[in-house]
């Protein structure tokens, strides 16, 4: 039998397309697919950076919109209302000055033994400090009903802020009573996470604005420099709250 010879020339036109397909697939696997992967990663990174930029722009806009003078003024009041550290003596002195301005008599105070001692041994004030940013105070004084009411009104608008817990009245004579007052004073240390560039800043809420407006009605009975209030241990760092 005669062996038929295979005609390769017939398939020559397929050579070029074959080479093209081979090149396309090889380069796609070796070059294009890794590039697609890296462009996808790049796209994701860009999306993250765009979000970060938007966040920083927003933060910059909020911070840039703040008036430094107004901010310092507001901070001064806020720090007077809520001192950075426990200041029982400042609070007691403020209460005493307020009481004296309302002509209350027998108004004396000291601190309970163990915390701070006072020369005014005859007075009936003691304090206990708990962990809730509060100092509990017990004060006693004498006066008539009008004076007592005015004093309580004054306490509710006093700087540093105090909250009246209870009031016991012992009438000794007609229109003259001895009052035992229990109240708490507050303090709040500075924010712990200050000034991290990427942390978000939220503007004052409506309620916080309202709280500030209410606070403007409050008055300090004592003029105390904020510098003495805010002095902290010398750490070598700038104290930006030192006005």
């Amino acid at each position, binding site marked *: 039998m005669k062996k038929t010879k295979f005609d390769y020339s017939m398939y020559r*036109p397929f050579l070029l397309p074959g080479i093209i397909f081979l090149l396309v697939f090889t380069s796609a696997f070796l070059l294009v697919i890794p*590039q697609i992967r890296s*462009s996808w990663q*790049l*796209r994701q990174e860009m999306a993250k*950076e765009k979000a970060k*930029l938007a966040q920083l722009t927003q933060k910059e806009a909020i*911070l840039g919109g703040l008036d430094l003078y107004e901010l310092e003024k507001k901070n001064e009041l806020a720090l007077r209302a809520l001192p950075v550290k426990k200041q029982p003596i400042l609070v007691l002195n403020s209460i005493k000055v307020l009481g004296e301005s309302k002509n209350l008599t027998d108004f004396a105070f000291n601190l309970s033994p163990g915390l701070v001692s006072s020369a005014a041994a005859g007075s009936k004030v003691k304090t206990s400090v708990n962990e809730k940013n509060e100092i509990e105070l017990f004060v006693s004084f004498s006066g008539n009903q009008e004076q007592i009411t005015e004093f309580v009104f004054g306490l509710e608008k006093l700087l540093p802020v105090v909250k009246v817990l209870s009031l016991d009245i012992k009438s000794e004579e007609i229109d003259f009573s001895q009052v035992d007052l229990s109240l708490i004073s507050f303090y709040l240390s500075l924010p712990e996470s200050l000034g991290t*560039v990427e942390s978000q800043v939220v503007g004052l809420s409506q309620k916080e604005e309202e709280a500030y407006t209410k606070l403007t009605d409050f008055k300090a009975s004592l003029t105390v420099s904020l510098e003495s209030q805010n002095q902290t241990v010398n750490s070598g760092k700038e104290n930006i709250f030192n006005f």
Partner: protein
Amino acid sequence: MSQGIDLLRGRNKGRLKVRKQAVKIKLISFLVLGLYLVAGSGLFVYLVWAKGEKSRLQRSIQVKKQRIIDLKKNELLHLNLKQRLAFLNTQLDLEQNLASRSITTLSKLADPQVTITSFSFVEDGQVVIAGEAANALILSDFFEKVKKEKKEIEIASLTSLTRMEEGSYEFNLNLKFKGK
């Protein structure tokens, strides 16, 4: 009209079929190559643009960071203020003035023969008062007045009442003052 006779019809038929297929495949391969080149150059252009865009974004971020660092004092003062006002807002009801309100209201309602001896101010406008009245008639009159004081007092409940030997009464009242 003349018509040629194809003597090699069977063999040529196979060749013609292969040739037609080869043309088709060649066309498809050129099309694929063209598309591949377009897509490849598109990808290349995108990568170049994306890298440029990324470095532009990074520069912008650095500029913003620097601006924020320059505004550090504003940020710190703002954070401190916000923290304090939030605390005051949640921990204290600055406008409630519960102590002065309750003293004023009750001294207005109480006859001289009714003595309020103690006020305790609880959360949410609640005040617990203790007092003494000279007799039942005066006490009843006082309770009636407290009940009618709708402007300031929301709820009033008597928690204890004790008659003393001399005929006077000691009482404890729980009052809920209206919020401001």
